[in-house]
């Protein structure tokens, strides 16, 4: 198998998603394709040779060829994300390698029913799965439970609304943990056992679950799901570490 090689991509579009999240479209002439849920390693090199790298989930589905969408949360005291947010411009080059990871991966061949649970920017790899599902016109039952602090923090809000309204068998449920929009009748608390139980009920313990977000949210949700009787090998987890604020 070919070694994982660093390659140069060109930033073609930068799109703000929320006040602290931006999507970067990167054109990659040598990209060999990826599966939904995989990520890339991005490496920055300073003029003095100092290097640092981070891994970022791929937001775009495999069906978008020739380029990747990376959605990056701004970590205030971070080393890489402030550079991406504040310095990188359209036309700049970025060095990355991938795709990496095979564990946190879902495509239509894996089947369902599919329960996706995301917190904050943990929605990014889940979005690649939902975009792939839509591009394949799959009717595999799918639910996304997405935890956000406030309405301003909902990444891909318009697209999620549009997908939920137009794609068969998909439900998007958002819970707001700090402040909900006026007139909100949905969930307004952290994800807990009662909420997970309601969300998973139509699928039961046959659900294939993918949980991604801040470490503490993932720990809590994964433990609850296993406690509800889901086999551990159907609970896939990816921990992003600290939250962005």
């Amino acid at each position: 198998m070919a070694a994982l090689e660093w390659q140069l991509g060109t930033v073609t579009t930068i799109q703000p998603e929320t006040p602290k999240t931006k999507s970067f479209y990167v054109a990659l002439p040598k990209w060999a394709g990826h599966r939904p849920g995989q990520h890339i390693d991005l490496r920055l090199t300073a003029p003095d040779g100092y290097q640092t790298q981070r891994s970022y989930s791929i937001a775009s589905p495999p069906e978008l060829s020739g380029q990747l969408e990376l959605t990056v949360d701004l970590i205030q005291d971070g080393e890489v994300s402030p550079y991406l947010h504040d310095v990188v411009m359209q036309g700049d080059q970025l060095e990355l390698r991938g795709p990496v990871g095979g564990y946190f991966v879902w495509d239509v061949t894996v089947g369902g029913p599919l329960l996706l649970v995301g917190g904050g920017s943990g929605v990014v790899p889940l979005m690649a799965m939902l975009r792939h599902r839509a591009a394949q016109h799959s009717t595999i039952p799918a639910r996304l439970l997405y935890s956000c602090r406030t309405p301003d923090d909902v990444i891909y809000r318009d697209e999620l609304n549009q997908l939920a309204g137009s794609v068969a068998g998909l439900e998007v449920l958002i819970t707001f943990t700090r402040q909900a929009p006026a007139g909100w009748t949905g969930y307004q608390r952290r994800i807990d056992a009662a909420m997970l139980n309601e969300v998973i009920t139509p699928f039961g313990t046959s659900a294939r679950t993918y949980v991604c977000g801040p470490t503490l949210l993932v720990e809590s949700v994964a433990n609850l799901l296993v406690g509800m009787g889901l086999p551990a090998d159907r609970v896939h987890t990816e921990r992003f570490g600290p939250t962005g604020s």
Partner: protein
Amino acid sequence: MNVETADMNTELMVDGNAIAGELEQIFGHDMTMAVARCAGCAADSMMATLMAFVRGPGAVLRCPSCTSVIARIVETPTATYLDARGMLYLRMTHAS
């Protein structure tokens, strides 16, 4: 740091997915689904599910069951060091 958590180590912890690239660089293929048996408690865990601490000079992987150190990986400008004495074995299923 999230003010709702007091424990910085837990807050900064990620999992084996975060070093999938480093592992693939060392082993030549994806390792996230390879299973490591912990030398401390004999629990089997996929590499993706190991607790990972990646903000130091190297990466430390710990067992999610007993928190023993399973492996340490350090990259220097000239070499990669892998200390895997915390695992009894690593099981890599053949590609089908």
